[in-house]
């Protein structure tokens, strides 16, 4: 059996390309290494970390740090491995993070879709003015509104409640509106015209026609906003410090400050950090393609 050989000669890859691949490899390494290091430290015995700081493998492999962080270890066990006996009520904080992130995402996506449709497809007086206002809202640095919002929550008695953490983000975020408006404007009008001819009103068009068609961007938006809500730190720190509503990011900050009188509990901290990042990592593994492809979509326009 004769195989047809391509007559292209084998060329040695140009030097530039080799350097490029090395550079790319370096970027990849620098990106991945800290994650590995987190894992390596979390699986080490905290008290013995100082004895072999440059070892690439865990020092005295143990799950002690995770047990400590999850509150499974006793105080003696914890302190024997360099911990302070403080634990991260992981499941409770995880629950809180889920509630907060889900509520915020649901509100932002739903109300954002409504508003985006109004901007994209409906005609009404003041539309441009309001759009411009929302645009301005994007420019305001969060800290500027967070202080007065904190006072507002205080006045309403919503400090240390889920509502207090969720409300400022719940009703609107300029990004969601812009993101969806862009998409809605791109939907061809024929489908709408057809539905209108069938006698459907605007509301029905929105819910029965537009929304189902937008499941893709809606899902992408939901994922992006979920991740952002999950990673919020400053606002939940201000408004939700109490154990009952504390989210994972804030809990991590607290855990960090609970260092024992001696050396910081590095192993425990890395275990806590890993656990705090785990849910997002899982979401990412499932939705990586969507997330990656969504970046830049609205950036170029």
């Amino acid at each position, binding site marked *: 059996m004769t195989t047809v050989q391509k007559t292209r000669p084998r060329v040695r890859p140009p030097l530039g390309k080799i350097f490029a691949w090395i550079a*790319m490899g370096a970027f*990849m390494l620098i990106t991945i290494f800290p994650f590995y290091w987190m894992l390596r430290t979390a699986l080490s015995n905290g008290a013995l970390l100082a004895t072999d*700081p440059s070892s690439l493998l865990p020092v005295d492999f143990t799950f002690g740090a995770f047990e400590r962080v999850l509150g499974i270890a006793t105080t003696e066990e914890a302190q024997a491995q360099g911990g302070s006996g403080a634990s991260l009520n992981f499941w409770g904080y995880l629950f809180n993070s889920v509630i907060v992130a889900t509520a915020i995402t649901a509100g932002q996506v739903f109300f954002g879709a409504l508003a985006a449709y109004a901007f994209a497809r409906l005609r009404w*007086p003041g539309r441009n003015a309001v759009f411009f206002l929302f645009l301005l809202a*994007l*420019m305001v*640095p969060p800290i500027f509104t967070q202080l007065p*919002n904190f006072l*507002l929550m205080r006045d309403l008695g919503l400090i240390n409640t889920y509502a207090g953490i969720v409300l400022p983000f719940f009703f609107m975020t300029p990004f969601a509106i812009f993101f969806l408006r862009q998409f809605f404007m791109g939907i061809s009008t024929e489908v709408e015209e057809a539905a209108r001819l069938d006698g459907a009103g605007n509301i029905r068009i929105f819910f029965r026609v537009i929304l189902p068609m937008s499941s893709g961007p809606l899902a992408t938006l939901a994922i992006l906003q979920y991740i952002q809500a999950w990673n919020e730190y400053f606002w939940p720190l201000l408004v939700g410090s109490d154990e009952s509503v504390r989210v994972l990011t804030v809990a991590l900050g607290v855990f*960090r400050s609970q260092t024992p009188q001696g050396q910081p509990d590095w192993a425990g901290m890395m275990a806590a950090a890993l656990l705090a990042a785990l849910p997002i990592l899982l979401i990412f593994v499932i939705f990586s393609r969507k997330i990656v492809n969504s970046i830049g979509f609205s950036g170029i326009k």
Partner: protein
Amino acid sequence: MSTTTSVPTPASPAPAAHAAGSGSPRRNHHSKAARKQTWIALAFVAPSLFGFAVFYLWPTIRGIYISFTDYDVFTSPVFTGLANYARLFSDETFANSARATILYVLINILLQTTLALGLAVLMHRLTQSTFVRSIVILPYLIANVVVALVWFWMLDFQIGIVNQGIQWLGGNAIAFFGDETWAIPTIALVNTWRHLGYTALLIFAGLQTIPKDVYEAARTEGASEWQMFWRITVPLLRPVLALVLVITMIGSFQVFDTVAVTTSGGPADATRVIQYYIFDLAFQRLDFGYASAVSVVLLVVLAIIAAVQLRLTRANESDLN
């Protein structure tokens, strides 16, 4: 820390996507339909408008009001006119935090933009695989707090792996978070690590809009990679780069999480960036009035930057057209 993902430049709105009404309206019918649409539109926009009014507009007004008062939360605010603003001029800590923030912003932007450009070009020329892009975006998905902790550990003076590496190479350990001159650059580096992938992907998306024939044409004329990069890629990327620059800048001014979890403003105020100073003033010194004044200043600065952006992107409708 940028809290928003990309901003759609308002310079390119819907091209008349609305058929200018039906061509043959009977006036009454059309007005009725139009009014109905208005009511529905208002209903649709109501929640967002409510959120905007209560959580953006009202706080802005209140914030500005408080900046003219002396308010410690436990007693009623006392109107003091421009006293807080006057204090800004003689406040050394404020001057220091402004300096620290600006230094941070500059380092962060420079580093992030150049590295992101480099990475984007690498990705564009070497591989378009989603896998690589997924890896690259990973740090961005992790909370600032987590990133800060991990690097706090890796850059530890005693037993952090980075210093171990430096010492292995023969150098002296660096007190990344403890040395006054290193503290801000270190925070900038940490945040760059987190945002690099995201910024690179933004630029990458921009690179993809550049048609391949431009490169083909250049290559047939014998242009080298380097020349193509500087003569074709960069100019055509200008709007994207401008956008990236502004997003990064606005985000950088609001760095807080990383500082809060690592240095808490130290050593000796070296990392007391503006947002951290505002937080400090409000919740430790119980000086909400002055804290609000500083926030107003920050707002004005960022508004100016945003205004500059609008000019830039409007003037720079892509050279492709």
